[in-house]
């Protein structure tokens, strides 16, 4: 195996693969270096996984909506914040050419107290059960249930709820729970999944919603979802709506624009997103320090040999090649265990928290390229020690 790798690197570099031979010569140090790079990769991949989970959890509710455009308060950053939108904007929007239908969407949070005393936070959507608000067939097939007061559909991926609860509902045995001083009955389930700020979702009728949140008014939903006629340009209608509707209280966006704004806000303005970004930076820093330590020690240990090669007539580029060869080997060989462990941790964290942590090819390749860059930068810094390899000192 080692011989084959040596032959592979010899073919790759077109010379004796001294970098590879130096690394494997001291197996303890090589193992420690790989563990260090893998650790940095795991750190980076976990932070990116959490960030990706956050972004996915932001996208999921939007993707459930049966809408081309969304009208929200002008100060809206996420589905959950911003003021209400005057219901009359819905009728004004319906007057715009190309707008086929509109549905008000009410949003609130309720706490679901569990038998053990813990609380699950549910993001609650209030919808008109006579209209198609969501694109999910599973939800639309159960809209009639919501026409009865205090009935609710529950997210089957709600975090930290015993499976027996969902099995019971699936078996046709409704459950009830107290929320906001009312008794809600859950007869049916749907599937979205929790995020960073919620354990799961609940869908109720607009009337039930207003009963749960009596301070809210029917004439002021949080969002208005618009569906357009087939073949109509979303951007053109959004532009038309921006011109027609007063910008001080209403903003018209395509669903993609709303997702982009929501994602940008949550990943760059909110602490959770900044923390994950900071975690990635720390991972890169840790990786750089580890690789620099390994490479600079390696250069220092071989300074006399390098000086000998200089005396023989090898140019400076030859030594840079050795250090970069080592840097790339550390990057690739450290990445492999790093990505495997990260995938295992993704599965573990996902099963525990319900967060959608998935290793995407783009993320894996990005981190590999980033690791290579990280190792190359560390290698470039470590090559400064090569200047100490003075062949005249050999005599």
């Amino acid at each position: 195996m080692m011989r084959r790798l040596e032959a592979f690197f010899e073919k790759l570099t077109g010379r004796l693969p001294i970098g590879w031979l130096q690394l494997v010569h001291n197996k303890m140090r090589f193992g420690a270096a790989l563990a260090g790079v893998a650790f940095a990769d795991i750190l980076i991949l976990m932070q990116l996984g959490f960030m990706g989970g956050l972004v996915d959890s932001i996208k999921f509710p939007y993707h459930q909506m049966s809408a081309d455009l969304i009208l929200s308060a002008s100060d809206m950053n996420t589905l959950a914040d911003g003021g209400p939108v005057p219901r009359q904007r819905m009728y004004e929007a319906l007057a715009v050419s190309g707008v086929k239908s509109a549905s008000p969407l009410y949003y609130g949070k309720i706490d679901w107290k569990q038998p053990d005393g813990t609380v699950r936070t549910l993001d609650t959507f209030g919808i008109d059960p006579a209209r198609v608000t969501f694109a999910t067939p599973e939800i639309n097939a159960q809209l009639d249930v919501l026409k009865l007061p205090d009935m609710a559909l529950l997210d089957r991926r709600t975090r930290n709820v015993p499976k027996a609860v969902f099995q019971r509902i699936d078996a046709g045995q409704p459950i009830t729970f107290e929320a906001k001083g009312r008794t809600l009955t859950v007869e049916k389930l749907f599937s979205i999944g929790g995020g960073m700020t919620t354990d799961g979702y609940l869908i109720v009728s607009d009337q039930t919603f207003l009963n749960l949140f009596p301070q809210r008014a029917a004439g002021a939903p949080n969002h208005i979802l618009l569906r357009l006629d087939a073949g109509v340009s979303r951007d053109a209608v959004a532009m038309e709506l921006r011109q027609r509707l007063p910008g001080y209280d209403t903003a018209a966006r395509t669903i993609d624009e709303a997702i982009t704004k929501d994602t940008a806000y949550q990943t760059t303005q909110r602490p959770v997103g900044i923390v994950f970004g900071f975690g990635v930076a720390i991972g890169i820093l840790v990786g750089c320090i580890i690789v620099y330590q390994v490479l600079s020690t390696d250069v220092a240990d071989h300074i006399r040999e390098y000086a000998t090669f200089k005396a023989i007539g090898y140019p400076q580029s030859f030594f840079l090649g050795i250090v970069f060869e080592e840097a790339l080997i550390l990057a690739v060989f450290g990445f492999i265990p790093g990505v495997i462990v990260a995938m295992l941790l993704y599965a573990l964290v996902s099963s525990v928290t319900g967060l959608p942590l998935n290793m995407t090819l783009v993320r894996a390749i990005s981190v590999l390229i980033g690791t290579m860059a990280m190792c190359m930068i560390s290698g470039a810094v470590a090559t400064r020690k090569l200047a100490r390899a003075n062949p005249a000192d050999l005599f």
Partner: protein
Amino acid sequence: MIDTADNSLATSTASYPIVVRDLGHWFGEDEARKQVLFDLDFAVDAGKLTVLMGASGSGKTTLLTLMGCLRRVEQGSVMLLGSELHGASEPTLVEKRRHLGFIFQAHNLHDSLTAMQNVRMGLEVHGERAMAHWQDAAAHLLSALGLQERLDYLPAKLSGGQKQRVAVARALVGNPDIVFADEPTAALDKDTGAVVVHMLKQLGRERGTTTVMVTHDNRILELADRIITLEDGRIVDDLRRP
């Protein structure tokens, strides 16, 4: 000091692989600046074994490193294989060194490379063409030095003498025009030391390889074609054998 014959030949330096003229050298800066070589003039004969002798601090090693393109010439002139080293650029010095072979007192073998691979490094610097039969060349040299059973050994598994022999093979495998050696036999037993010196002499006869060596080994002095003695940075004796 340079003999009459050398002075007359100084005008046609092409026949000498090394010609040193008015060479001076200093170490240190400002008040700590100290001259270690003074106005040296001599030419080294092609294909011969020239020994530099002198007490510690006499300047012989500094002279060796100046002729070997390992230090920059500050004053005077060193013509090496027809090229002036005074004022030569770093790439020129690097290129010149590829025509030289170095044998250091310490073997300086690469600890991660086998004996064969260490010798290979002496060839690889010459490019792809030189590498065509590198295994044969390296194995032949190592075998000639009695290491045929140790070709794939790492330096850690070789004795001091064996390591030095690998270093000798590394210096010679590229067929250098000039070999610079610093006490090359210090770590070798009597027989192996003799093998190395006879090999250098044989290269001189067969290929015209010139050897400049710093040594105090009396066994080598007997075989030297010329012995130059330095004292406090000056040549005080220049003995040629017929």
